[in-house]
């Protein structure tokens, strides 16, 4: 029994999963012990060291970029190749020390689109 074909759609929506090349993360570094605040190069070194510890030389060779860094609030926007998101996030999670003081990386937002990091509905204040 043949079914009647649905009428041709007026528009077509294509959804491609994991088609983006890069993933962007907004992270914040917490230093509760009042250690010296790292600059942007020190932050990148910390991220690469975390990757090297958890994922070895192959992980340290992952292309990670620090796109923006605010030293006052210690928050940064990182960019990584999409296939390396899991490795980067796990390495950041398990990084516990910066210059022998306790630290923690909090991942605030992550998205395959950089523009999506501009607005954060969690920090939205409703009057």
């Amino acid at each position, binding site marked *: 029994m043949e079914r009647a074909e649905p009428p041709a759609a007026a528009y077509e929506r294509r959804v491609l999963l994991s088609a983006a090349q890069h993933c962007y993360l907004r992270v914040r570094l917490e230093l509760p012990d009042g250690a010296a605040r790292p600059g942007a190069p020190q932050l990148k070194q910390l991220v690469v060291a975390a990757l090297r510890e958890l994922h*070895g030389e192959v992980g340290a060779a992952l292309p990670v970029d620090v796109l923006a860094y605010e030293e006052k609030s210690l928050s940064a926007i990182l960019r990584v190749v999409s296939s390396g998101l899991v490795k980067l996030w796990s390495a950041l999670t398990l990084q516990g020390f910066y210059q022998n003081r306790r630290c923690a990386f909090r991942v605030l937002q992550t998205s395959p689109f950089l523009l999506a990091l501009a607005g954060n509905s969690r920090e939205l204040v409703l009057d």
Partner: protein
Amino acid sequence: MVRFKNRYVLCEVLSEDPRCRQCIEDRAVGLAVRDAIARAHGDYGLGCCCVSFTVKYLNAYTGTVLLRCRKDFQRLLCSALPLVRHLEGRGQRFPCALRTLHVGGTIRTCQKFLIQYNRRQLLLLLQNCTSEEERHSVRQSVLSCSLAEEQPQSGEEEEEEEDGAETD
């Protein structure tokens, strides 16, 4: 779905130093490979590969090593094998390299491959022989591992092949 699948990697230890042969032990080779995995793939790689990692078979005369790992982490192991540069044993360090010959799912397939490989190696050795005694002994080895027509059950036994590898 139900059972754990393993991959068996057959390697050959290449070394210029002839004293390295004494140093080839299962513990030394296992430690060297483990170090290489830790350097290349970090704590995560070390944890993944060393769940079911052992040196199953070792032949110090030919430098043949059979390693086992889980099927899911075979690529991590195989990518770390070229990074093994030294073998340490009895307080000495020898530079060496590991060459991968074959990757199989069972010890039996690796054994079959090893038998054929050793047969080909014997023929190569025969061509490269320098003295008459060497030539004679290699010829004897080649004859002993070929099929003999008279016996009904011709053994395909390779005289360098050990049979202690099947136990688990």
